[in-house]
């Protein structure tokens, strides 16, 4: 008899499915039923770009403790794809469980002696009840959800409520789904009682948190931030961001006569996308594009134009593993440097690093204010992990008193009043000049926008001093940006520490979990979550006030560390990289291992032994 994993409200389930089999909505139903029982979950889609056998996986970490990073390892595998069987079976933790369709008898060699096998003749059950092939496929998924609910102790009433919500308006579909659900539950109750040692118990750990994808939240944030023009070219994992904007605009920005208070263009490529964004922003609309690494590569020349000519632009980069086509459906934080210094010549750009969908919404709206205020491109750097997975996060917030900050734009009245207008004149000593929108005034305020060098009155010049004057002002403007971008968030260990950790973006939940565990091992670390570039002084001060700082990131070349060293004039010896870049989301386990190993090298064994 293999050992049996026993756990309550703390385990990992993974579904191995065939794409297009309707499993996605069934799995989502399954996952959300935990949330309804007050137990937090972290769910992730894994969908390789190689479509042979059409495999997709869906991983659910059930975590009353609220650890929303990926855990690693699988306690219960729901193996529904014969093509990936061997790999799926191999992934199960010793003592874990394999749930499979036992209609066809499999040889003993297909299993492992150290795991618990739970078979259910799903195909036989559906074939007996349904004759239509599509129904067979769809209800098979609902049947296994019913069976799993029974095995794990999910309250069936919660699943039923979710089904009813899902099919609201299509009420005919509710009873057949209930029937399938009950078929699964009844079978498991009769034949599989006690087969799985993983249990869920009602808790109160979710609060008012919501469950949504970062791309969806970003698209909605762009609506709230007043974006009216979106130009984009399809690329995983950013496509659903533009689609979300389309969906939310359809709902919130359509006049009663059907006219649209927005314009969305699927451009011919990323060059055209960013070109349209720049044209629209030059002409006074809030505009953005959504893309991923290869698109950023293509946009380089235009980004330099927007920087130098000082045209606002918002670019959402949902990062995926590069270089080149890399691993297009895997996550990384690998576009930090190409974004920070995009384009030829001396350039620097504003970057925002949201940690979850809640912050995606907030930063999306803020990005438009920053782009207008600073008259420059602003990058919102998501990654596939945040962008394409539903995360449990704080509800979205909006203050109705908030106004769009359109930045320094001279109105017709101000021009009429005879204000001196020099497009590149630093009137306020913050490096930010005033602009006018085309067509603003019949005789005043027109100017020529160009990528070539110009004087303070926008007149073409190749005079060295005028060029240097302009380039220095751009640096002053970037200095101003430091005080406008979101501040870093610091969290100090209970005991004073000489060692710090810097992290950003989707690494956040894994860090929080790792810090708890490391703290209990006597490794006390102060942490700082960097939320934007340019780095505010707080970031540099944090590094200078610690002897050593771990910089945790999801790329090979320590891109954030490079940027810190370069921009903060930091001694590289102070910074220790912890790098995870295999395309899977970083885990607390990885961070704990890496940090404790280096800690031991630096300080000897930790103060106390692991409590676990």
């Amino acid at each position: 008899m293999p050992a049996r994993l026993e756990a309550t409200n703390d385990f990992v389930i993974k579904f191995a499915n065939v794409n297009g089999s309707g499993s996605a909505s069934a799995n989502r139903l399954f996952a959300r039923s935990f949330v309804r029982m007050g137990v937090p979950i972290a769910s992730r889609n894994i969908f390789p770009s190689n479509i042979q056998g059409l495999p997709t996986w869906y991983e659910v970490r059930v975590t009353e403790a609220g650890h929303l990073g990926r855990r690693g390892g699988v306690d219960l595998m729901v193996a529904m794809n014969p093509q990936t069987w061997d790999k799926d079976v191999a992934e199960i933790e010793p003592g874990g469980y394999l749930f499979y369709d036992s209609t066809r008898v499999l040889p003993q060699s297909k299993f492992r002696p150290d795991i618990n096998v739970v078979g259910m003749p799903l195909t036989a059950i559906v074939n007996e009840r349904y004759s239509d092939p599509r129904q067979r496929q769809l209800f098979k998924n609902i049947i296994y959800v019913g069976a799993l609910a029974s095995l794990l102790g999910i309250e069936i009433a919660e699943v039923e409520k979710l089904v009813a919500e899902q099919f609201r308006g299509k009420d005919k579909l509710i009873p057949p789904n209930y029937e399938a659900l009950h078929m699964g539950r009844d079978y498991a109750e009769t034949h599989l009682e006690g087969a799985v040692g993983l249990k869920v118990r009602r808790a109160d750990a979710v609060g008012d948190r919501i469950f949504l994808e970062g791309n969806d939240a970003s698209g909605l944030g762009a609506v709230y931030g007043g974006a009216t023009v979106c130009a984009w070219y399809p690329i995983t994992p950013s496509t659903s961001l533009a689609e979300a904007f389309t969906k939310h605009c359809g709902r919130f920005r359509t006049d009663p006569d059907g006219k649209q208070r927005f314009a969305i263009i699927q451009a011919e490529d990323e060059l055209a996308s960013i070109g349209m964004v720049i044209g629209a922003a030059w002409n006074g609309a809030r505009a953005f594009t959504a893309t991923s690494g290869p698109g950023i590569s293509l946009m380089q020349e235009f980004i330099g134009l927007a920087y130098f000519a000082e045209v606002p632009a918002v670019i959402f980069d949902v990062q995926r593993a590069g270089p080149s086509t890399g691993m297009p459906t895997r996550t990384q934080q690998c576009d930090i440097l190409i974004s920070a210094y995009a384009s030829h010549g001396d350039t620097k750009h504003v970057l925002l690093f949201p940690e979850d969908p809640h912050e995606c919404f907030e930063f999306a709206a803020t990005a438009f204010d920053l782009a207008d205020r600073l008259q420059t491109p602003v990058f919102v750097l998501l990654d596939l992990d945040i962008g394409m997975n539903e995360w449990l996060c704080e509800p979205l917030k909006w203050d109705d008193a908030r106004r769009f900050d359109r930045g320094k734009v001279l109105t017709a009245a101000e021009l009429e009043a005879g204000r001196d207008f020099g497009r590149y004149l630093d009137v306020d000593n913050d490096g930010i000049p005033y602009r006018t929108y085309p067509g603003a005034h019949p005789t005043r305020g027109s100017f020529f926008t160009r990528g070539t060098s110009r004087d303070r009155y926008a007149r073409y010049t190749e005079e060295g001093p005028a060029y240097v004057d302009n380039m220095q002002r751009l640096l002053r403007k970037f200095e101003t940006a430091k005080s406008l971008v979101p501040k870093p968030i610091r969290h100090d260990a209970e005991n004073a520490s000489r060692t710090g950790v810097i992290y950003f973006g989707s690494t956040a939940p894994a860090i929080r979990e790792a810090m708890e565990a490391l703290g209990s091992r006597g490794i006390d670390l102060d942490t700082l979550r960097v939320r934007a570039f340019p780095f505010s002084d707080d970031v540099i001060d944090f590094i200078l006030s610690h002897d050593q700082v771990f910089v945790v990131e999801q790329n090979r070349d320590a891109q954030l560390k490079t940027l810190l060293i370069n921009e903060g004039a930091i001694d590289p010896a102070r910074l220790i990289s912890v790098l995870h870049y295999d395309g899977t989301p970083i885990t607390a386990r990885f961070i704990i291992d890496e940090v404790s190993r280096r800690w031991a090298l630096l300080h000897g064994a930790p103060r106390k032994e692991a409590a676990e």
Partner: protein
Amino acid sequence: MTYLTKPKLHHPKLPQNELGFTRRDYEGAVSTLCAGCGHDSISGAIIQACFELSLPPHRVAKLSGIGCSSKTPTYFLGASHGFNSVHGRMPSVLTGANLANRELIYMGVSGDGDSASIGLGQFAHCIRRGVNMVYIVENNGVYGLTKGQFSATADKGSKSKKGVGNQDSPIDMVSMAVLLGATFVARSFSGDKEQLVPLIKAAIEHRGAAFIDCISPCVAFNNHPDSTKSYDYVRAHNEAVNYLDVIEGRDEITLDQAPGTVELVRQHDGSYLKLRKLAAGYDPTSKIAAMNYLQERHEAGEIVTGLLYLDREAEDMHDRLGTVPTPLNALGEAELCPGSAALAKVNASLR
């Protein structure tokens, strides 16, 4: 090279248009192009057309790519906003600008290198989208700014100044524009203002994608005897199919030419174009006839000029998108931001 402003010395007797502006009010900075460059004549034609139409100069936005041709927006309409973007990408910048404010007049100026080589894709797609604009290619068959390399519109067999022959097939932007769905397509010659000015006026008045391929000799690199884009060659082979008059008032249409040689073309908005026909039987409202004629005369070695295609039922990008009549850049929080109550509902649906 630095910027030169023109002294604004208005002659009291300069003719004024309906807005009280003189032609000088439509000029820009002094050109820094080579003396005799065709591009300067096109700038002159644009100035003349805008003056004659009595356009408020600030309601025009002028956009360009990179090249000698793309520099010219500095030399006309000094009171308009201009945008000299990057090489070959004017169409996307113009498209974006148009999305933001559908009420301005968009004038895109480009070169044959800018539009037929590096920017061919953007040229094609902004035409397809029906962007309401005037798109002028100042076509000299070479890259003037980078000193005379062949462009993609250079004719097969034509020779460079250094005597090297072009082996590759030329891209005919006019045929492409017709194929791609431009709703106003013309070709003209920088040396023929009588034809060019009314064409620009009609293109401005046209609502939809208006494209003008204007042959514009480069005196520095492509005006020699073996060139097919020289002044002499174009004059000798110019086969004008028609000359236009733009009729602004909707009444008082008189046909003063011999019957059969003048045609009135009614446009979507009710205005008329008066066509003086030189090629009897050429029907610019038939796409297929236009395509056939263009290919046929091209085979015969002629350069067909005039209004070549007009779709009287043209629609533009905003019609297709269904955008509100108010320019998007004029919408504020009230029209754009759904507010906290709507957000509370969104939150509730995500639990």
